[in-house]
């Protein structure tokens, strides 16, 4: 009896908070048929927003993946003073509201900010431009790879790596052939989460972007802009596009899964 109750409660919860809103977005986007939805996402602004979003993710995700693995290795495998602080710092983006992150970047890099004078003098623009948007996206999506990889590294221990060393493997060979295969699923999952966060980020990007249509407008910003201009089809269609990219990332990860894991 309570077995059914558990299932019912679980499914109902998922339906109300996940499936219904997402379903509604799809419904509203295609309410007037495929045509208007397609037109809405193929306007120059929408296309630009799409490419900008993908571009930012394409830079932020690899950066956070490489940095995340290095950082996880340092946290788990090494002893150094201030390790606890590093470990806590990695979680900061999870605790800090993205809007605050955006404001912090403004304070540092805007024309009146701390580094603003110097940057302007050298003709470098960070905020209200692509570099700032990439930086804040990296900031908010930083913890995921680290947090996924750290526990796995702890669990596998160092014996396999030591065995590889006694067998003549260099540190790099050991990393590539022993450590990396052991943590690849943690990395993959971290990458999926990082990608999702990078694509969906709104608050921080919104603050540093300046909302310049066709220039610094990402898909999430585009959704908001369309919505406020009462272009509901446009807003929902762009939302669907966002959801599709996220789903595509998940599917790609599943496809790349090597056979031995599914044994």
């Amino acid at each position, binding site marked *: 009896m309570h077995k059914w109750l558990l299932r019912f409660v679980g499914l109902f919860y998922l339906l109300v908070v996940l499936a219904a809103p997402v379903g509604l977005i799809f419904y509203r986007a295609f309410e007037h048929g495929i045509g208007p939805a397609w037109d809405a996402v193929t306007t120059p602004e929408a296309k630009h927003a799409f490419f900008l979003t993908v571009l930012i993710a394409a830079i932020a995700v690899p950066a956070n993946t490489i940095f995340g693995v290095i950082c996880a290795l340092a946290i788990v495998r090494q002893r150094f003073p201030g390790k606890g602080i590093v470990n806590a710092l990695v979680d900061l983006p999870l605790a800090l509201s993205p809007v605050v992150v955006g404001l912090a970047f403004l304070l540092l890099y805007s024309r009146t900010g701390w580094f603003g004078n110097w940057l302007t003098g050298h003709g470098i623009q960070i905020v209200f431009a692509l570099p700032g948007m990439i930086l804040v996206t990296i900031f908010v999506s930083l913890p995921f790879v680290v947090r996924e990889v750290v526990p796995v590294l702890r669990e596998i221990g160092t*014996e*396999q790596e*030591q*065995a*590889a*060393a*006694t*067998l*003549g*493997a*260099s540190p790099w*060979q050991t990393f590539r*052939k*022993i450590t990396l*295969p*052991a943590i690849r699923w943690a990395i993959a999952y971290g990458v999926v989460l990082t990608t999702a966060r990078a694509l969906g980020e709104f608050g921080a990007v919104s603050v540093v972007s300046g909302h310049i249509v066709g220039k610094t407008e990402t898909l999430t910003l585009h959704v908001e802009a369309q919505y406020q201009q009462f272009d509901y089809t446009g807003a929902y269609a762009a939302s669907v596009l966002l959801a599709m990219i996220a789903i595509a990332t998940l599917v790609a990860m599943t496809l790349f899964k090597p056979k*031995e894991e599914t044994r």
Partner: protein
Amino acid sequence: MAIVARSVTKRFGEFVALDDASIEVPSGSLTALLGPSGSGKSTLLRVIAGLEQPESGIVELDGVDVTRRAAQKRGVGFVFQHYAAFKHMTVRENVAFGLKVRKRPRSEIRKRVDELLELVQIAGWADHYPAQLSGGQRQRMALARALAVEPKVLLLDEPFGALDARVRKDLRAWLRRLHDEMHVTTIFVTHDQEEAMEIADQIVLMNRGRIEQAGGPRELYEEPANEFVMSFVGPVNRFGESFVRPHDLELRIDPNGETTAGTIERVVHLGFEVRVELVLEDGRDLWAQVTRDEAEELKLAPGGTVFVRPRRSRVFQTT
């Protein structure tokens, strides 16, 4: 290839794992590093392998100082207690690992791996993953993997420690035979004195990071350097100021001037051997090991009185 460690000291924080430890292992021998847990035996092995850096002291392989050389370049084969199997590789890939990182030709790798799998009797498991193997098979795989690169020395860290008693006994005998065929200088760590006595040419007994005594199994048993050695390598009784092994106690029906009277508490028949537990006149406990025939001759029974004399005993200077 001879192995020498000289005055090696290693600390982990406050804990002194190795305290001025020196050993010499002759080329081609099978040496046991024996000691209770925490005695530093594994640490010494790891220092020899280059997996730990000592604070002071040197390690020589075949007369060459390798103290600052990385594990990767020492040419030692190392076998871990918990196998350290590469979980994402098949048995064949595990054994081939060392040859692959050395970029040996494929045909050679294949041939060598086949030979080794045959040698350690897991040829039928070549394409399985370590998780599908039993503990004993996994450890044999780990041994084959270490042997693949033709190490000059073989270091085994409690190789049978995680296995059950029967598999352990089989593997022990098998390791001795393997060593007799290959003559690779081998050191293995164990806390089991029987294991060390059974297969080692030389035993190095450690305690609290120090070497207590090194020598042949018989030497350690017959000529222990101190009380610790005597009690670690076999059973021992305290008899006044001296120490005596239970089988070196003579039991008599009548006193003969050198004997002490004792009351029998318990008589335990263990097949051929009989354990006799006694309380001496001065209230001290003692146990003697006699044969079944002797026990019958003396008519040993609980409550009875016997007279005890050590045939052979040792007195150690207290330090």
